[in-house]
């Protein structure tokens, strides 16, 4: 351990704030309460760490999470004990499932009363244990700085994730001071994540890749988390292979590029899922073979030999057996793999690859994402296409969970990493708007849009107030179909259209709601008004605009791999007949 020597003595509360400064933390998203009042007092009057006061602790976690996804830096959260801490759980679990670096500080009742059912006591460490990468209860103020350092170290290295530090109130007592040392680096004997891949495995992978006749690259969130988009792009172009991305990987390879076949999985494109099913070599990169990707496991990629690059050994061969595992960070592994391929002087069989591309182009020609452009109703897909044009494909887009999320994934072609921000693993409704606030704080000069649904947006609607206070003029695109559309779609397909409680009889007037929070609201009901409304909203640079698009409520997300089906057994829209198209 290397210590920067400070001759200062600080209280626990001051240590917390000083440690955040030394860690270079820009923003802390929080909400006060008894157990953290000493810390709030230490935050008072300083400007280095900017505190963002949320309206509900869940909002704080999603803001910190959005900030982390858009920057790669850890998001930082502060909340009080008991209800403050329990309100964080959804947001912590959201970050955990998507491997997002986050450091959460919670207040706890004073050490002497822990375990006595004290006022606002709960076992925060116990409650959060299953949804954090690690957590700590600080019992000695002399270890506070080091523990905070450990938290940042663990959160941001290896497979990232949220780390929680629970701090009893007596530890932050302003009257007890101890010497302050913030370690610059830290090393834990029990935690040494791998960085470089094993050269023998990389060589084997290169050999297999060069023998491929029907190759496929399947990349995911690990490419974004590991800042490896340039390497992935170089690798894919070098080989001329087709590539698909998971929901979490979008932007890791340019969405407008010909080699990109679109997203794969439950709502993936026809060409991506067919190519997965037919490929003979699958190169999985920073993706975790989620069930929304694989479909029925025993019919997944039946002809493929699989290479899997992942920093977490537990992701490898968890759901699907793998032929060549490579444990390491995507970036250095791809760099070494590219070097190995170049050094070999060999290329994959060009004729085989050309024939494979011919097959893929036939699948692509099915044009599975086509929809009715003549409808008098606003089609949600149209809104997203127009959003893409209006923002030149350059906006940061967050979403909530449901049909609208899938339409962004399908129709907004992300060319760059960290621009698509959504909850994939946990699928947390309520994520989108607070996440957008976190993104906007990180990138004040960029367009930041939250695409949402009328059900999801109501789950964290209170953060509209936070958005006003901190001047984060995001744009909210509400695809208002007056249904929990994704639930309704499942009910249509598998429950004979019995729409059990997937419809809300009372939906607020979002225009007036936005206005009540001090923002601009717009309702758009006709297709011809979609683009002008978007353009007008983006012209209002310093206002949050809530665009309430009244969309076709019967629209479904296609293609769809229904539960229990194999990945190539997709349900296509009724207006597409694949047999005829491919004949």
């Amino acid at each position: 351990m290397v210590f920067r020597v400070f001759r200062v003595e600080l209280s626990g509360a001051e240590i917390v704030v000083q440690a955040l400064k030394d860690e270079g933390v820009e923003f802390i998203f929080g909400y006060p309460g008894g157990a953290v009042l000493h810390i709030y007092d230490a935050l008072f009057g300083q400007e280095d760490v900017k505190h963002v006061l949320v309206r509900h602790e869940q909002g704080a976690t999603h803001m910190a999470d959005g900030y982390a996804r858009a920057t790669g830096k850890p998001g930082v959260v502060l909340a009080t004990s008991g209800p403050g801490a329990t309100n964080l759980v959804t947001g912590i679990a959201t970050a955990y499932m998507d491997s997002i670096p986050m450091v959460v500080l919670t207040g706890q009742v004073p050490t002497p009363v822990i375990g006595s059912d004290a006022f606002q006591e709960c076992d925060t460490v116990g409650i959060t244990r299953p949804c954090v990468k690690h957590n700590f209860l600080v019992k000695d103020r002399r270890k506070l700085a080091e523990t905070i350092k450990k938290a940042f170290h663990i959160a941001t290295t290896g497979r990232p994730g949220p780390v929680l530090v629970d701090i009893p109130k007596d530890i932050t007592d302003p009257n007890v001071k101890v010497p302050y040392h913030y370690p610059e680096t830290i090393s834990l004997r029990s935690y040494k994540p791998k960085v470089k891949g094993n050269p023998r495995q990389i060589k084997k992978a290169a050999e297999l890749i060069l023998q491929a006749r029907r190759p496929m690259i399947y990349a995911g969130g690990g490419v974004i988390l590991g800042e490896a988009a340039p390497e992935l792009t170089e690798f894919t172009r070098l080989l001329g292979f087709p590539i698909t991305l998971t929901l979490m990987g979008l932007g890791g390879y340019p969405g407008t590029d010909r080699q990109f076949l679109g997203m794969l999985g439950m709502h993936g494109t026809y060409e991506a899922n067919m190519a997965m099913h037919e490929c003979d070599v699958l190169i999985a990169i920073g993706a975790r073979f989620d069930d929304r990707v694989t479909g029925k496991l025993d019919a997944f990629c039946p002809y493929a030999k699989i290479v899997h690059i992942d920093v977490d050994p537990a992701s490898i061969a968890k759901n699907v057996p793998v032929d060549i595992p490579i444990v390491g960070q995507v970036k250095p592994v791809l760099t070494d793999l590219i070097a190995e391929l170049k050094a070999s002087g060999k290329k994959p069989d060009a004729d085989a690859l050309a024939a494979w591309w011919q097959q893929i182009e036939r699948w692509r020609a099915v044009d599975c994402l086509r929809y009715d452009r003549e409808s008098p109703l606003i089609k949600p897909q149209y809104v997203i296409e127009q959003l893409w044009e209006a923002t030149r494909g350059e906006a940061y887009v967050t979403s909530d969970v449901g049909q609208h999320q899938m339409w962004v994934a399908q129709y907004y072609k992300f060319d760059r990493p960290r621009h698509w921000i959504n909850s994939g693993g946990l699928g947390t409704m309520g994520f989108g708007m607070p996440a957008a606030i976190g993104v906007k704080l990180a990138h004040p000069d960029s367009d930041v849009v939250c695409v949402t649904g009328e059900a999801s947006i109501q789950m964290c609607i209170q953060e509209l107030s936070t958005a006003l206070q901190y001047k984060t003029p995001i744009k909210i695109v509400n695809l208002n179909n007056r249904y929990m559309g994704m639930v309704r779609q499942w009910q249509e397909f598998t429950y004979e259209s019995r729409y059990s409680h997937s419809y809300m009889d009372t939906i607020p007037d979002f225009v007036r709601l936005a206005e009540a929070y001090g923002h601009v609201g717009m309702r758009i009901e006709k297709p011809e008004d979609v683009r002008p409304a978007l353009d007008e909203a983006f012209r209002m640079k310093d206002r949050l605009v809530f665009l309430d698009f009244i969309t076709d409520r019967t629209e479904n997300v296609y293609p769809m791999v229904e539960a229990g089906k194999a990945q190539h057994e997709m349900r296509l829209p009724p207006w597409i007949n694949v047999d005829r198209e491919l004949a």
Partner: protein
Amino acid sequence: MRHIISLLLENEAGALARVAGLFAARGYNIEALTVAPTEDPTVSRMTIVTRGDERIIEQITKQLNKLIDVIKLLDISGADHIERELMLLKVRTHNGYDREEIKRLSDIFRGRIIDVTACSYVIEMTGDSAKLDAFLANLTPGQIIEVVRSGPTGILRGERGLHL
């Protein structure tokens, strides 16, 4: 298949809960678990007996390794190893016949009688779990007052060891 996984972990509050929680959350089975500090008081040694096919055991070891508090682990059942479990057993000895018979049996199994009253014995016995099972199978249920078993611990044979 039965596996014995030995772990070295940080002797921290909550480390045991992390391991137990992992097994519960992922639906893995724990047949037995023992834990105690080692010669280095900052390190605990844990022995877990679990069951599962190869894929599950692979996931269990990977998931355990992922826990920040776990320093090292080894599936010792994959190598030549020694397994020992301690059993303390209290039996009824109502008549001279019982007393003789149980003592003889205990001697055969290399048990030691460490407490005697007019109508009971406490027997101490170590061995692998199968040996303890076999001993118990030789008693009638009416003879047993209580059985306390530590759960197995284990160590590799030869020079190789699990250490920091």
